[in-house]
């Protein structure tokens, strides 16, 4: 365990170097924007809409006293989505989707000696392969999460008007009440930290694969499990640090 941390930090010290060739780095970055970002849009959109809808319906059902105004539904949905659901849950989903992809891609390159081939050419493989993924994740995930927030709120609204539980005006005025801009900052800080965790931890498990296809599979499972656990832990730590 401790040894793994050591290897992780040594690997990261090789990742955060000046790229051998900037034009190649930019090209890799564009590819990663696409494969880590654009290709995740679909799942992020679907989950966000449904999450927002469920959140709104649950809140509406649980308000059974007329003393609480129905605007609470919009307010609660917004708080839940912005503070927790979008940054944390979507990051966990991305840990599954993006994390396994990164680990298996790099792991396959390791087990088929493509990483050795890079090294022989004089390329720094850790930097060449992992840095663009980390940078791309840290830049693109805030966009994904922003989209997720809007779609979540939209999903809540859709649920309210289709079920007729809450009036559209009530929901929207709830969304706009007691808004603290720092909650967005908080969500984005979490998102960026989680993006780093997903990409670097998965990169690490892929890069250190030993053996064949089976080992690539188990590395990719480990990548998902470990980055999910780390996300949960860092969620607690960051919440403590930022909100109290």
């Amino acid at each position, binding site marked *: 365990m401790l040894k793994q941390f050591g290897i992780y930090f040594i690997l990261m010290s090789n990742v955060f170097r000046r790229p*051998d*060739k900037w034009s*190649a780095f930019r090209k890799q970055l564009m590819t990663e924007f696409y494969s880590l970002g654009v290709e995740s849009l679909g799942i992020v959109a679907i989950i966000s809409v449904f999450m927002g809808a469920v959140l709104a319906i649950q809140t509406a059902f649980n308000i059974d006293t007329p003393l609480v105004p129905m605007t609470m539904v919009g307010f609660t949905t917004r708080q839940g989505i912005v503070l927790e659901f979008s940054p944390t849950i979507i990051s966990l989903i991305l840990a599954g989707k993006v994390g396994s992809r990164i680990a298996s891609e790099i792991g396959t390159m390791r087990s*088929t000696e*493509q990483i*050795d*081939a890079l090294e*022989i*050419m*004089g390329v720094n493989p850790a930097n060449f392969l992992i840095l663009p993924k980390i940078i791309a994740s840290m830049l693109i995930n805030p966009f994904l999460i922003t989209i997720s927030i809007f779609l979540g709120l939209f999903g809540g609204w859709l649920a309210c008007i289709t079920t007729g539980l809450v009036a559209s005006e009530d929901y929207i005025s709830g969304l706009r009440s007691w808004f603290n801009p720092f909650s967005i900052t908080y969500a984005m800080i979490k998102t960026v930290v989680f993006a780093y965790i997903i990409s670097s931890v998965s990169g690490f498990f892929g890069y250190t694969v030993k053996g064949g296809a089976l080992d690539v599979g188990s590395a990719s499972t480990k990548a998902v499990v470990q980055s999910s656990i780390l996300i949960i832990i860092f969620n607690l730590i960051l919440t403590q640090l930022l909100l109290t």
Partner: protein
Amino acid sequence: MIEAKHIYKSFADNDVLKDISISFEKGKTNLIIGKSGSGKTVLMKCLVGLLDADKGEIDYDGRVFSGMSPRDKKRLRQEMGMLFQGGALFDYMSVEENIMFPLMMFTKFSSGEKLDRVNFCLERVNLKKANKLMPSELSGGMTKRVAIARAISMKPKYLFCDEPNSGLDPQTSGLIDDLIKEITEDLEITTIVNTHDMNSVLNIGDAVAYLHEGKLWWTGTKEEIMDADNKELQEFVFATELTKRLKK
């Protein structure tokens, strides 16, 4: 010329290489032979620095590779080409992009110059017009040839081949062997080839080193190997029916 002096390497309690001292000459195909698991790949990886030897020194034409600064190592690496056992082509790049990759990373060639070089290398391995194919579309022999083309695209001074004909039929194996030998002689490269294939030994073995359980057991030429007076080497050489008959 590449010289290895007193190389030791072990993994945990498995001593893989024990006091290997050997030199490899320029313009020759130098073979390292031995049974599976005898340490050929580990030795080659120590030579090129993919693995760090526990003890010993490695010199490239007098330049001490072991203990070089990362920057100098990187520069020396650009003089090396390596052919990996499975080819190790980048599978998301076409044949052309694979061969162009080192040129793109390390030269200031224009696109035209890069393409010329790619085509020259492809022609050298008899694979004209394969530019746009993807690695998944190549046969075993073609993969090896593209890998050779990529290995020589930077005009290396040193070429390393790990089991270049593993997984190939005897005829294709022979072609790959011939190709390696021709390239070595044409371009005056120091070439090192790992193999357990006696056909290759008799075909291209300018200098042959026999590795047995991590020790350097015997060195000589392909002419000398048939009459070598060494029990373990004899067992290795005459393991196949063909070589047994050859002896008679």
